[in-house]
Structures are given as C-alpha cells and as structure tokens.
C-alpha cells in the first residue's frame, strides 16, 4: 500500500509537469487550430535559463524572470515565424513549429555545457513522510504550483477581457473579429502563455536531476495527454496529465511483477496505451467537446 501511494505521489508530481505542458498545447490549439511542436524547446530553454539565473538571483526570482523571459521569446517567435504563415494550411504551420522547435532547442542546448547543470532548486531529493508514505518535496512543489497556475489560468479565461476574447476566438474566429477582437493579439498571447507554461514545466521536470539535452523528450508525453484529455479542453489537459503521470508511475513501480519481459521500459508505453484505450471509447477524448447545438 505504501509503495502504491509513493508511486501515486511521484505520478502526481510528474503528471503536473505533463499537465503544464499539455495546457500550452491546448491553448495554442484553441487559438489557431494548430498543434505547436515548439513546446519541447521552450521547456528546455526555460530550464536552461533558470539554471543560469538562479546562482545569481536566487531560485524563486530566477523562475519568475525565466518564465517571463521564455514567454517573451515565444512572443517573438510567434511574431517572426508563425504570424506570416497565418492563413496557410494547418499542416504547414505545424511543420514550421517543428522547425522552430529544432532551432530553439539547438540554441538552448548550446548553453547546457559539459558540466552537469542543476536548476538550483531548494528541494533536491528531500523527503517528507506523510502517514508512513515518503513524498518527495519536488513532487509536492510541482503539484502545488501547478494547482496555483491552473487556478490563475482559469480565472484569466473566465474573468478578463482578453481571456474571454480568446475563448470567443476559439469558438468562432470571424464572429470574434466582428466584435473588435484583434485576432493577431490573441495568437500572440496564446503563444506567450504556452511558452511560460512550458518554462515552468521545464523547471519542475529538471528539479532534482541534472539538466541534459534530452530533457525535451518529456514534453512529447504531453501529446498523448492532450489527445486523452480532449484537444480543446483545458480541464482535460490538467486531468489527462495527472492520470497519465500517476498510471505511468504506478506501472513503473510494479513493472517487474506485471511485465517482467519488458524490463524497465513499461512506463514509457503507458501514455500511448491509455490514449488508445480512451479513444476507443470516447473518440473526442475525455473532455473534448462535442458541439453544443440546439436541434
């Protein structure tokens, strides 16, 4: 039992990272109907930037500054590389985002260096025992911060003028334009938000481990997460992230008894198997909306 709960706590921590990344994908998808494959690069560059900043200004300030900086980078990338392509086929824009991903990742990778870099987080591998279950601080932190970010994000979409305009644009772009919504600004804000979310995810993904060039691979797990949760659902992204994180951690814990022939790799296939199972039952994903319509 303790073993299971420990696995769940690890899963909730990792799942929070997936949730943050998935939110970025979903926000851009809702605004532009494009899946941006540039998220992994923003995640890596967020982690690298924070690792450079934290010795100078302390960890918390570094995370805040790093997140804002990556949001600005995403904003610039959108303006320079994506905006001129608006109106082209969705497929074309998706491929361009892959190009952006590679460029940004190579640039960020150059700052990783040869010595092991750490993010400078205060948690390391410290552990607190709650009711006999050992929970790592970094996982608690990831979970709590993600909860906070998600709450802020939902408030933004519900109560602010820009957030509401973004939801309206997602539903009917032309009608939103007729109301005076500047769609270009909506694209820009969605990229900035996605960049910021990826940077925060990068921080928690590399907390406790040295940063390496392959950190971005974690971000690919967000793809099955968004399909599982429903491409256009923010709530689905959060829940999908947590579900996949937890199931993955549980399977990784028990893999030697359940799937001895797979050795230690069984965790890696979990997101995709889960995605497949959910899609068989609900083709639109767990929370993807079927159209609201009065017949």
């Amino acid at each position, binding site marked *: 039992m303790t073993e299971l709960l420990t696995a769940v706590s690890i899963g909730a921590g990792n799942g929070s990272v997936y949730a943050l990344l998935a939110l970025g994908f979903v926000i851009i998808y809702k605004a532009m109907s494009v899946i941006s494959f540039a998220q992994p690069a923003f995640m890596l560059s967020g982690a690298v930037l924070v690792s450079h900043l934290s010795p100078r200004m302390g960890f918390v300030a570094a995370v805040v500054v790093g997140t804002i900086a990556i949001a600005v980078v995403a904003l610039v990338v959108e303006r320079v590389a994506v905006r001129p392509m608006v109106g082209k086929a969705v497929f074309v824009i998706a491929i361009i985002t892959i190009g952006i991903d590679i460029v940004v990742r190579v640039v960020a990778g150059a700052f990783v260096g040869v010595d092991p870099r750490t993010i400078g987080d205060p948690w390391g591998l410290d552990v607190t025992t709650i009711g006999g279950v050992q929970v790592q601080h970094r996982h608690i932190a990831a979970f709590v911060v993600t909860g906070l970010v998600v709450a802020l994000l939902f408030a933004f979409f519900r109560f602010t003028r820009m957030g509401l305009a973004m*939801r309206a644009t997602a539903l*009917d772009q032309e009608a939103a334009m007729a109301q005076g919504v500047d769609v270009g600004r909506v694209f820009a804000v969605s990229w900035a938000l996605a960049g910021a979310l990826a940077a925060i995810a990068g921080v928690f993904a590399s907390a406790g481990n040295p940063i390496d060039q392959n950190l971005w691979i974690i971000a690919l797990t967000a793809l099955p997460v968004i399909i599982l949760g429903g491409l256009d659902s923010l709530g689905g992204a959060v829940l999908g992230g947590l579900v996949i994180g937890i199931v993955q951690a549980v399977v990784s814990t028990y893999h030697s008894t359940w799937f001895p022939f797979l050795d230690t790799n069984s965790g890696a296939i979990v997101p995709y198997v889960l995605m497949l199972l959910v899609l068989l039952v609900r083709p639109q994903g767990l929370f993807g909306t079927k159209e609201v319509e009065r017949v």
Partner: protein
Amino acid sequence: MLAVNNLEVVYDDVVVALRGVSIEVPDGRIVALLGANGAGKSSLLRSLSGLLDVHHGEIRKGGITLDGESVDSLRPAQLAKRGIKHVLEGRRIFKELTVEENLRVGAHAAPRDAGDNMTRVFDLFPRLVERRQQTAGYLSGGEQQMLAIGRALMSGPRYLLLDEPSLGLAPRVVGQIRDIIVEINSQGTGVLLVEQNATMALSIAHHGYVMETGRVVMDRPASELLADDDVREFYLGIGGDEERTSFRDVKHYRRRKRWAS
C-alpha cells in the same frame, strides 16, 4: 456618414463580387439593401466591417469613407472601435459561452462603457435577462438573433450592419426583430439592413438600394421602392396586374426581369 464609392471586390483574385457599388449610410437612418442570392449584399457588408480578408476577398477599386476619411484599409478591430459593427448572417453567437459572456465579448471594442451598454441591451431584450447565465447555444433561434444584435450593440456602435436578421425565424419573431431595429435606430444608431424579406425591410427603412450581380440597380427612398411595380413583383411577390399571380400564369419570359443587362 458612411459612404461606399465605386467599390470593386474580388474573391480569390478571380471571382468578382462587387462591380462598382456606391451607397451611402447617413447617421441615424435605416438603409435597406435588397437583392437575390449572390447579388453581393454580404460582400458589401464584409467590406464595410473589414472581414473580406477572412474570405480571401479584397478591394480592387474604389473605397469606403467614414466622415470623409478613408477607412477601407483598416482592420476589423479598428473599424469596430470606430463604431461600425457587423451582425453576421446566421447569428454566429458563441454557442458554448453564456449569454452574459457573449455580451461581454461584444463590449471588447469599448470596455469602459460595458456597464451602461449592458443595461441598454437588457432594456431592449428583456428575454436575455432571464437567460443571462444560460449557455447561448441552447437559446431559441429568435433569442439567438436578439443576442447577436445585443452583442453588437455592446460597444455602442454608430452604424449597425445587419445581415439577414430575419433568416429562418417565425413571422411573429420577425415582427419583433423589426420593432427592435426601429427602436435601436430611434436611439440614434444608423442601420444598414440586408434582407431577403423585402416587405419587412422596406416597411422600416428610410432609403433602399436594390442590388443585382454585384451592381446597384435601384437607389430610391424606401417608400418609392415599395410603390415600384417591378420591386413589388419581383421582391414583394405582389403581382403587377392582378392582386395575386400564380406561377402557372406567369409566362417564362416575364418571370425575371433584369435591370442590369
């Protein structure tokens, strides 16, 4: 005054939708725009609200002026700020948002006056008050049209461009929409009304234009258009000679008279 001068609009570089259209929408008046399907009515509204781009259309010649200043290169957001608000054909409300959220999006161009305008819209459409927190997609057709008009009024526009507000509505609801348009106009908003329902449009308009294949073919005060024999026959469905004409009795060469040919 909103004025269109000799406007030529082309879609996808090949399809000519408007061929030299000129109309005027004075402040505080109702101007009706009649015409069959494909005459270019919606294209004209799109050029006025800057939404041609979405449909791969562009203005080739001529221009649009607002109080004498050229506005045809402005983006939709800027035009909405200057008080030109387009109510799209088919209502196009944000179905998954609530009624109130729909209205708040409508106030995007004038966030400071949102409170006052919300009161004004709820005065005009008491039905929307009851349904304030409901998902807009579940409203009835008439209520959705009211919401679409209310949403446009949320930024206090000077000119309201209405594209087929009576489309698909029951006759009684059409009557309500007509009364609302008159009410909005009496509060000082200029209205450009595109309609297939010519009887309704001409009964409230001050001035009317008839369009055909991208051209304006008639340009007269609404009362004159209502009395015109051709308009009566082709747009109001009232026979020229007798009270009622059966289609069986109409000779094929008389069915459709074209002004522009």
